[in-house]
């Protein structure tokens, strides 16, 4: 903050060369015209700024002026609650008396949030934030009247994670609305919100949110420390922070979770985690993140436990197979043909007749093409997306095989890989990296290369910690209570405890007493 001030000062000092009187202490002056000139200077080339001066019908000498930014304010409030009362009211107070501003604030202006302010910095940021500045001639103070206009997206079901069962609301871009949505879920005074402003230019509001008597020891301090070390000029989405505070910087694996759903965030808070809301982003970060959370869905907790356990197993299998299947296929058909059953060997051999490119290369290329199609389909508007689908199916599925550019099994493997990786959208990035890595070592060294590569990946995963919690914590346990909510989801009456380490401050989730 000091640095900020210092920078601002410097900036102001440069302005002195322009011969415009700016008060040294950055306070308002008594002259209305000077003040207006000042703000005109501050918002020099900004034509959205609106400066409107007017007078009360009785007190002719009390010149007033309001300054606001067009579009940021609710004009109804400005017209009916500020201008109209000030114009029409009977003011019997003497203009010279020192409390006219106070009188206006107390008796005239109809607004829920009015403050008296004289610091130019604060006033400027308030104007930018959508408040209306009310200046009165002869006063070196001004009123800041809350008149923000929040044009927000409606609360809809998030596109990134849809559910069949469960609440359909999702966060939107407004921090305050997001916080309310969370507050409505957890109605306890222990739910704490800590605000801070980040990004030197965007001045984005960020809110650290936690439940006081549940939050994991040390995480809060660690998070604040990491946030302190961020010196970035802009934060446009929580993704900026997500990457800046992550534990293993070079690793493709995320150690900070992101969710668009209030119920998910509430559940994570209730397990002892910390959430980080960023203004302007519907994605709320949660720390610490366990690897297993990528395979969990909020729906798991709302549906029958057998069904959700089954779904989790499917997700696990698809996650593993989307990284492993191309390499396994490659190792089988190019290194260890003795492991294929004879009929399969014959049919694979038949499909490869006349194909010029090596299997490894065609796998690489086809997977790459699939990713191109995926990316194109996500970015394209709906109708064109359909076209891409058709071209993709035709080019990939039919023409390439018939033209003998690739063999049919390669297409099948690509399709399986693609679909399984799309099932785990949350960590498609790491999946692509790991898959390519495994494919590379496999094309060198066959199945053994694949297995070594797999060991390396697991070693890497095991070495990662997210805010002091091992990333793969719940993975290897079956017996202790962390395993209840890992590969499977135990019935609710069994999950009486919060996860170890994260929820260790208060482990009991369900009281077992009768």
């Amino acid at each position, binding site marked *: 903050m000091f640095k900020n001030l210092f920078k601002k000062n410097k900036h102001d000092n440069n302005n002195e060369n322009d011969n415009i009187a700016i008060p040294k202490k950055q306070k308002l002056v008594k002259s209305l015209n000077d003040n207006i000139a000042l703000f005109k200077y501050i918002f020099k080339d900004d034509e959205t700024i609106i400066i409107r001066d007017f007078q009360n019908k009785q007190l002719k000498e009390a010149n007033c002026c309001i300054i606001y930014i067009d579009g940021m304010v609710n004009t109804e409030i400005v017209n009916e609650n500020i201008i109209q009362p000030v114009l029409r009211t009977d003011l019997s107070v003497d203009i010279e008396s020192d409390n006219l501003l106070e009188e206006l604030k107390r008796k005239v202006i109809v607004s829920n949030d009015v403050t008296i302010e004289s610091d130019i910095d604060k006033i400027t940021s308030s104007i930018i934030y959508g408040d209306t500045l009310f200046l009165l001639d002869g006063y070196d103070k001004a009123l800041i009247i809350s008149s923000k206009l929040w044009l927000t997206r409606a609360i809809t079901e998030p596109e990134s994670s849809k559910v069949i069962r469960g609440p359909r609301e999702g966060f939107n871009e407004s921090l305050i609305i997001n916080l309310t949505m969370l507050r409505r879920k957890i109605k306890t005074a222990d739910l704490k919100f800590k605000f801070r402003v980040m990004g030197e230019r965007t001045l984005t509001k960020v809110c650290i949110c936690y439940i006081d008597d549940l939050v994991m020891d040390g995480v809060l301090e660690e998070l604040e420390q990491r946030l302190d070390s961020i010196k970035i000029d802009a934060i446009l989405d929580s993704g900026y922070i997500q990457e800046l505070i992550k534990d293993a910087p070079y690793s493709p694996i995320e150690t900070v979770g992101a969710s668009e759903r209030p119920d998910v965030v509430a559940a994570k808070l209730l397990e002892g985690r910390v959430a980080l809301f960023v203004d302007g982003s519907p994605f709320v970060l949660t720390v610490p993140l366990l690897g297993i959370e990528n395979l969990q869905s909020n729906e798991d907790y709302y549906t029958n436990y057998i069904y959700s356990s089954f779904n989790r197993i499917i997700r696990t299998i698809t996650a593993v197979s989307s990284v492993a299947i191309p390499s396994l296929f490659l190792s089988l058909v190019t290194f260890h043909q003795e492991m*294929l*059953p004879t009929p399969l060997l014959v049919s694979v051999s038949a499909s490869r007749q006349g194909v010029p490119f090596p299997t490894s290369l065609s796998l690489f290329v086809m997977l790459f093409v699939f990713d191109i199609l995926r990316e194109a389909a996500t970015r394209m508007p709906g109708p064109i997306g359909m076209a891409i689908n058709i071209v993709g199916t035709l080019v990939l599925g039919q023409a390439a095989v018939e033209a003998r550019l690739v063999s049919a099994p390669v297409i099948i493997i690509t399709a399986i890989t693609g679909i399984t990786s799309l099932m785990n959208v949350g960590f498609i990035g790491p999946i692509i990296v790991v898959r390519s890595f495994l494919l590379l070592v496999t094309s060198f*060294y066959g199945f053994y290369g694949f297995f*070594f590569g797999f*060991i390396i990946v697991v*070693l890497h995963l*095991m070495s990662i910690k997210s805010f002091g919690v091992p990333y793969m914590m719940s993975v290897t346990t079956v017996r202790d209570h962390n395993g209840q909510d890992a590969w499977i989801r135990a019935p609710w009456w069994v999950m009486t405890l919060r996860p170890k380490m994260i929820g260790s401050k208060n482990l009991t989730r369900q009281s077992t007493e009768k």
Partner: protein
Amino acid sequence: MQKEQISDKEAIFLYASFLLGSTALVGIGGDAKNDAWLAGIIGVIMSIPMLLIYSRLSNLYPGRDLFDILDEILGKILGKIVSIIYTLFSFHLGALVIHNFAQFINTAAMPETPIIISMFFLGLVCIYAVRLGIESLSKTIGLFFPLLLIMIFIVQLLTIPNLHFENLKPFLANGLKPVFKGAFTAFAFPFTETVVLLGVFSSLKTKKSAYKISFFGLLIGAIVIISLSTRNTLVLGGLAGSLYFPAHVAVSMISVGDFIQRIEVTVAITLVFNVFVKSSVCLLVACRGIKKIFNLVEYRSVVIQTGLLMIFLSYIVYDNIMLMTYWAFKVYPYYAFPMEVIFPVIVWIVAEIKVRKANKLKPVEV
């Protein structure tokens, strides 16, 4: 830096996996032929006292590794000399294990791939694992080893149709002598090699766990090793002795309903993983030894170079596969005897005396 810790369960798996190491591949009790199972059991029983001594040592000095203990008990100079011996032993053992693995790949799976490539692949994975530290290594073992056990168990079930129990007969055809020879090999080859693990046990969570880990680790390891080598005899009969890697062929005989067949890959996975664990532990202990000898800040600084040296040593160590099996069964037991039995016994006796002395002093204080 936070001290690395491994849980008891992971340590047990580490122990068992270390025992399985290359043994699961080469088999035990070469001389004993169809009495190999008996040789295995005798070998296990023989090794129990030694394992008790190792556990006792790490119990007396919790949180210290092998080299700290040697330093503490034998004094600065002698301790350093024995430390050097153990470092070299562990280093050499790691190289032998890598060689074993690469030889397997070269003969059984990929004859056209140069042997040094196999060594590099395994060696680089070990280097990576050791640089990450014992904690992530043991966690990886905690994830893989139970899966491996399940897989071994399923494969054992699948071989049941191929078992020929008459292969176990005649019992003790050549008397007890070859059985004891085989038992001695088993004693030295996998079971008491665990002296190397003393270099890792400093990361155990609790003081008492050393006994528990030795016991359960030995139990799991021994059961798997003995059942595997018995299975090889039961499936292959006399042929098991003439194959370098009998497990591979024994599993290749499996054919259940035309569908589950050609599953040698399971053997390969078991082998690759256990060999990886064993050579990583050896590399880790060797690096810790170097750290202790030269008073380095951290063992991680020398991991890459030591690992590379290990790879090169494994490349030049044997000229051919005959020498490898000759070494494993004939030379190795004698070569390893001082490190596995003589030094630990001496160290243990001195340690006990020291502890007694300290205990005698204590009552005066009270």
